[in-house]
């Protein structure tokens, strides 16, 4: 397992379930024996604002926080947030983007338009871009809220971490029993999308 520290960042909109996704990921990486540090933002930023968590894992990790230009894998639960944080990626880093658009306040009030060229702009960066419809997959499972776990499933596959631990049991442990089945399906659905 000896290798350099990997840095992951999740970005989305308050209420999209970003903390749960990041905590499940942490739990799996810890189970696999990694040193893990993660950083969350609580408070003011949660009132529907843009929300970010970061997570680093490796043999020995010191900093929970990662600066711009140093993230290996960026997962965004919303498209505008991908554009907002893409500069956090390293050259050749990977961006896993949920194709969901959520208007922010200036868009809601008509002050600015939601950018229509996000994919096109992102394709010009020296990164690998993976766009999936996690909301669509969650909707098919009958529960929009598991969108975060769909993305998590896709992320684990993309990062080559599937074989690391028994992810279904980690996911099952992290959610309420009543929602176990749907979350497990969501995780599997996510993996099949990348």
């Amino acid at each position: 397992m000896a290798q350099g520290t990997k840095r992951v960042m999740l970005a989305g909109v308050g209420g999209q379930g970003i903390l749960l996704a990041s905590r499940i990921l942490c739990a799996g990486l810890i189970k696999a024996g990694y040193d893990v540090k993660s950083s969350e933002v609580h408070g003011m930023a949660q009132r529907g604002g843009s929300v970010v968590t970061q997570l680093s894992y490796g043999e020995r990790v010191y900093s929970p926080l990662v600066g711009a230009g140093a993230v290996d894998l960026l997962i965004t639960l919303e498209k505008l947030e991908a554009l907002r944080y893409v500069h956090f990626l390293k050259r050749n880093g990977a961006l896993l983007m949920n194709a969901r658009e959520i208007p922010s306040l200036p868009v809601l009030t008509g002050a600015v338009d939601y950018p229509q060229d996000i994919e096109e702009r992102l394709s010009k960066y020296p990164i690998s871009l993976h766009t999936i419809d996690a909301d669509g997959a969650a909707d098919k499972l009958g529960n929009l809220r598991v969108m975060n776990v769909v993305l998590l499933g896709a992320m684990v596959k993309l990062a080559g971490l599937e074989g690391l631990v028994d992810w279904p049991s980690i996911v099952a442990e992290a959610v309420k029993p009543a929602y176990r089945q749907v979350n497990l399906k969501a995780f599997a659905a996510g993996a099949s999308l990348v």
Partner: protein
Amino acid sequence: MQKIILSGNEAVAQGAFEAGAGLGIGYPGTPSTEIIEVLEKKAGPQCAWSINEKVALEQAYGACVTGLRSLVTMKHVGVNVAADPLFTFAYMGVNGGLVIVTADDPGMHSSQNEQDNRWYALHAKAPMLEPSNSRECRDFTALAFDLSERYDVPFFLRMVTRVCHSRSLVEIDPEKAYQRQIRAYERNVPKFVTLPAHARARRIILEENLTKLSKDAEAAAKANVMEITDRDAGIITSGAGYNYVKEAFGDRYSVLKLGLIYPLNQGIIQDFARRVKKIYVVEELDPYLEFNVRAMGIECEGKKHISPFFELNPQAVAVSLEKAGLEPLEELDPAAKEPAAGVPARPPILCAGCPHRAFFYLARKEKVTVVGDIGCYTLGAAPPLDGIDVSACMGGGYSIALGMSINPPQGKKIFGVVGDSTFYHSGITGAIDSIFNKRAFVPVVLDNRITAMTGRQQNPGAGRTLSGEDTFMQEPERIFMAVGYDRVLEINAFDLKGIRDAIREAKEAKDRVALVIKSPCRLIKGVEKGPLMDVDKGACSKCKSCLRLGCPAISLGDEGYPVIEPLTCAGCGVCGQLCKKEAIQVNDEEVSG
């Protein structure tokens, strides 16, 4: 033993529990809030939310006088509120240990300033430990209680957002039972009654204790770490700064990590300076360590290279010190040099159905000069509501307004607006001053029955304590009447016409009028949605007035018609009352379906 992942805040609670604290108390404030919430759930210490930081610290002190170990928590600006007793408690010393958590917020994620509270330790002569990860949060909390008792002085634990809200592994013994630590109470008037003659004697004792603590080799060994890996360059750092230095440079340069940052152990710093030729100091915000190291006559470079404001991170530290000639472990190779341009902002926003929305909408429409305060309702300042002229600090919503009423813009009455938690925290004093000094001022309470901004903590208007027990439920109306107001207008927060009439009435009134705008926060459990609203395109004139509410459920759709998103709408009905064309109506399908 078991390895678990804990946030810094959870780890402080764990440390206080293991140290046998008898009391955990505080006033909510990001990023400190979870400490008390988590501690309350660990059956053991008594826990409470106080009405403000001064009252919290004084209660913690009282409990410590009786022999309990007490933990008191607050955000950085809370220490300003608690500062008066703090300075004197340092002279008086403790009985049971007293640990004060100050949670600073470099980068101002959720705060109005980024003051560096390390100076408080130096200024108040209260020793300070600074952890850098969750394991140290646990260990330093326990250490702070021990040292507080050994050196007879209140102890600070200084946290920052990235320590409070970062999660890392901690080894704990899940079987460890709670064992309350209690010391006997003995009446001791020269110690606990600060007559000037007593205080002068205590002043000398305090100085002696601080000197002893600064030379305590065992304490230093627990708190400070010296890593000599290079003779040419070394970095002095502490707290979060240490994480960034190690991530950026690994073992490439020597590092002195200071955990006890007041009083500094001069011996270890001198030792480091003897072993390493060139010294850099890496610290967030102010040059606190740099000043102190320089004052010892040791040459060092810090703020010459490192930003004096906002947060640091490993890459920022690497880039700054690379310019000074150090070599980071990794060369930064970013996907882009700059953030993407022209990305619409995503500011925080009042929830759909928030009871604060209608008031600010109307205050703006009625052209009222509003002094706001700190809470969810500060978001009433953001466009499109744009309903606040001035807002600075808790309680300022009233007191700053009183000052403005002495020279009122356009000769108009000033409205001061605070939330219920803020009213009890420090609004009441301004309300009384207004009566005393006969100001042309209207106090308003946006009473949502909870401390919403920080995650819904109980306050005196909630009718319940932190542990969920029933308690007396305060009513702002009764308090206003008791302190001399003639009338209190109570209005439902979703009654647009009612609020408008009340604002007009209060503006013109010759007697003393206060306003209480009432409705619980949307996010309190059990608060139900109203009937969802929908736009009738046939009746809509596309005037866009409803967009001025800044409700996240309403957006501008195709052909210029507003659209209400049914999954987001909370059915507060405000948009329906606002629409002159009566084009926004209860969505019949949703109701019947």
